């Protein structure tokens, strides 16, 4: 059972426009969410995170929104740049009260930003 779902395998946007990547989750015990970017032949790079007590976190061009009632989060990239082209993974942790802080990942969304 997929506890973290990224239903769009790919997304293509024009340079300068907004990229919106979506993620849904089913486990109500998740209390922290992270986005990672991954280039081919490299490990995932941490981008931005959000605690379940917040509904928005912003860092430069990247903003993550969390809707707990809908169990949905999204990553907004504005403006999009060709260098943003990569696979983006949504991940979640059920930390509170847990014995380990394992990351549960979605399958990823391939973002292509066209010049």
């Amino acid at each position, binding site marked *: 059972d997929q506890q*973290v779902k990224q239903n769009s395998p790919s997304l293509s946007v024009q340079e300068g426009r907004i990229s919106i990547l979506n993620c849904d989750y089913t486990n109500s015990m998740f209390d*922290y969410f*992270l986005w*990672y970017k991954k280039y081919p*032949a*490299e*490990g*995932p*790079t*941490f981008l931005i*995170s959000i*605690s379940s007590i917040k509904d928005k976190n912003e860092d430069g061009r990247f903003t993550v929104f969390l809707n707990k009632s809908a169990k949905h989060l999204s990553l907004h990239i504005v403006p999009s740049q060709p260098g943003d082209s990569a696979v983006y*993974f949504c*991940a979640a*942790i059920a*930390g509170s009260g847990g*014995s*380990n*802080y*394992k*990351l*549960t*990942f*979605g*399958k*990823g969304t391939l973002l292509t930003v066209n010049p």
Partner: protein
Amino acid sequence: DAGVTQSPTHLIKTRGQHVTLRCSPISGHKSVSWYQQVLGQGPQFIFQYYEKEERGRGNFPDRFSARQFPNYSSELNVNALLLGDSALYLCASSRQASSYEQYFGPGTRLTVT
């Protein structure tokens, strides 16, 4: 500061063989986790270690084992390799076992033939 390092970068093994993968965490980080990523999927949790003790294990067979050393580096061992073990093996480090943010190394690409 150096990030998470992993060795080797690539590895080719034959079915039935054994493999050892190595990871050095970011300086000051005491927790190491291992993940397996197969093509088209997100990384899957294998183990978490903190202060040389196993803190968590994912849904992997007993052929997979790991350990952490006093300098916080870690090894992942896989015995009796199967074709299905071919994957990218990722190591992630964090400051504490209870740290939410984990930082990944470049991974070891294992191919089993």
